[in-house]
């Protein structure tokens, strides 16, 4: 039963057999997780502020990727307005901190909720369309939002950008990347856990059913429209939270960094990691975030290399880096 829609998504194939027994696989996974957790804990004691800044940024990208993963990878809806929701999150939490002096957990929640609410409204309108039309409508919304950030001078500071005052909790002030790091790590971990929970719940299953074929999903009694709008709203919520995470360690935001380019950067991460898997979204964010940071000094090379990575991955590893490595290892194991 296949639905030849325009923007159909690669079906995740079952894992290559012959790699390892399920038990040892679980063990490696557990070991990897423990290793990752240990690295996250010791990191701030070992490295400089700059490295911690990069770590914070990567964690923000991870949450952005998880959001896009929910709507594109899980639900199969090609939405291209992620940077707009990210921007809404940054400005909301920044302004709540600047003007109202809210403690940061509250302004973070507010940022997520505002972005999520806007996402629900846009989703309700845009999800009447599918495929290319949905992509273009969300693209148009993203560009329009960037225009709003750039021209709503009284609120966003317009082309001058906005200074974000340090995040506060009681008398505690977050002044450095080092101080922001624990907050950012905890929020990122919470979001990863939330994603896993959603993915394994009834809701996550209904997302994937919609991705495979919305007609079949409807026939199974899944409220397709509601599932799509929920995914869209959740994805916006994630982007809003990512924005507020960014606001805890950054002191300044300019609308230039909230355009289509940023959406494409996040899309690239999700695609390179592997559409449809949480590991892919997280891994893609780390790998590609590092590449993009290393190439920041030379924008022309950065663009050429981004482009080539996208093209080469689509040509030879369309299911992403991790599936590619797994296939390779499977092939080697079989000789």
């Amino acid at each position: 039963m296949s639905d030849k829609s325009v923007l159909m998504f690669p079906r995740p194939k079952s894992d290559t057999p012959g790699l390892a027994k399920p038990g040892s696989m679980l063990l490696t996974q557990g070991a990897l997780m423990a290793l990752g957790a240990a690295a996250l804990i010791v990191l701030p004691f070992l490295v400089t502020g700059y490295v911690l800044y990069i770590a914070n940024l990567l964690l923000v990208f991870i949450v952005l990727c998880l959001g896009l993963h929910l709507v594109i990878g899980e639900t199969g809806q090609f939405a291209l307005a992620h940077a707009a929701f990210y921007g809404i999150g940054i400005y909301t939490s920044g302004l709540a901190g600047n003007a109202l002096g809210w403690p940061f957990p509250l302004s973070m929640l507010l940022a997520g909720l505002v972005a999520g609410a806007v996402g629900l409204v846009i989703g309700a309108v845009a999800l009447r369309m599918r495929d290319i039309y949905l992509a273009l409508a969300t693209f148009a919304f993203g560009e329009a939002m960037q225009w709003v950030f750039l021209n709503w001078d009284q609120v966003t500071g317009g082309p001058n950008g906005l200074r974000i005052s340090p995040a506060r909790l009681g008398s505690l002030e977050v002044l450095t990347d080092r101080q922001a790091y624990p907050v950012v790590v905890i929020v990122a971990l919470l979001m990863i856990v939330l994603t896993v929970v959603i993915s394994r719940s009834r809701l996550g299953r209904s997302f994937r059913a919609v991705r495979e074929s919305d007609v079949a999903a409807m026939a199974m009694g899944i409220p397709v429209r509601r599932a799509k709008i929920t995914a869209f709203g959740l994805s916006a919520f994630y982007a809003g939270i990512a924005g507020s995470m960014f606001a805890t360690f950054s002191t300044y935001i300019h609308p230039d960094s909230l355009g289509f380019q940023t959406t494409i950067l996040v899309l690239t991460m999700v695609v390179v990691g592997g559409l449809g898997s949480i590991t892919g979204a997280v891994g893609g964010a780390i790998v590609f975030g590092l590449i993009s940071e290393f190439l920041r000094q030379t924008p022309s090379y950065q663009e050429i290399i981004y482009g080539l990575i996208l093209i080469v991955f689509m040509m030879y590893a369309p299911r992403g880096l991790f599936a590619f490595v797994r296939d390779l290892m499977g092939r080697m194991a079989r000789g």
Partner: protein
Amino acid sequence: MTIDVVFLFLQQGVASGLVIGSVYALIALAIVVIFKTSEVPNFSQGEMVMAAGYIALYLLVFRSMPLWIVMPATILAAYAGAALFRRLVLNQVARANGSPVNLVIATLGLSYVLRGFVRQTGFGDTPRSFPPVIEPQSIMIGQAAVTTLDLVILTTAVLVMAAFFWMFKYTKIGRAMRAVGMNPKAAQLVGVDLTRIHMIVWGLSGGISAIAALLISPKVLMTADMGSIVTMGFAAAIVGGFTSLPGAVVGGFLIGIIENFVGLFISSRAIVLAPFVAIMLVLVIRPQGLFGGRVEIKKV
């Protein structure tokens, strides 16, 4: 604003709108012809326009070649580049995983490569402009002021579109393209070489982009980011229904006129926003566009 001023603005808006709209229509045509035959919205169309503009600039200014060589050379280069991209890259992408979203992402990749490459050459660092090809003289049509260059742009664009429509409707290649658009498998069964048709479609789309670049470059400042003009092409294509070639042309002229009206009657700051509002309005009110026909019911 008195009645006189409104009337003057209306005339000027329509005149300037038709001129710039003819370029948007060409870009929209280039987008739609690819979409019709392979269901891929080409996100690198704007960068194809940009790259072609820089090829022409390079030949004209840095190699000081005469215009009658530069123009065909640019169009040919764009044709060859686009056809090769389809053959060497997109064919492999389609083989690796047939889903159109991968093709779309590959076109996004191409747009990055082209932009980075132009930046790398250094020509894109400062805004440049084409040397004036013909002496711009002002001509009054009614109360609207246009230049001779404007008239050349409009005439050329209309001629190119006419030639394209004739090709699409009456030649064997055109028929093959339409067949591929309707049903690729059936087209293949009756002897259409899919690879060849896709290459020609991409080549033509690249060639049309190059013509659009040659027409628009004397009027704008060229930068490596000038590919953002594609937004207007997408807006035009959507207004026209995205699968309709005549729709793309009408949409192009409409977007051109709307853009000028917004600039004259509302504010020049709002011009940038106009295409996005147009896209969203059309998609919400009439998603199939003006010429899109009925929404297809898909088989499961």
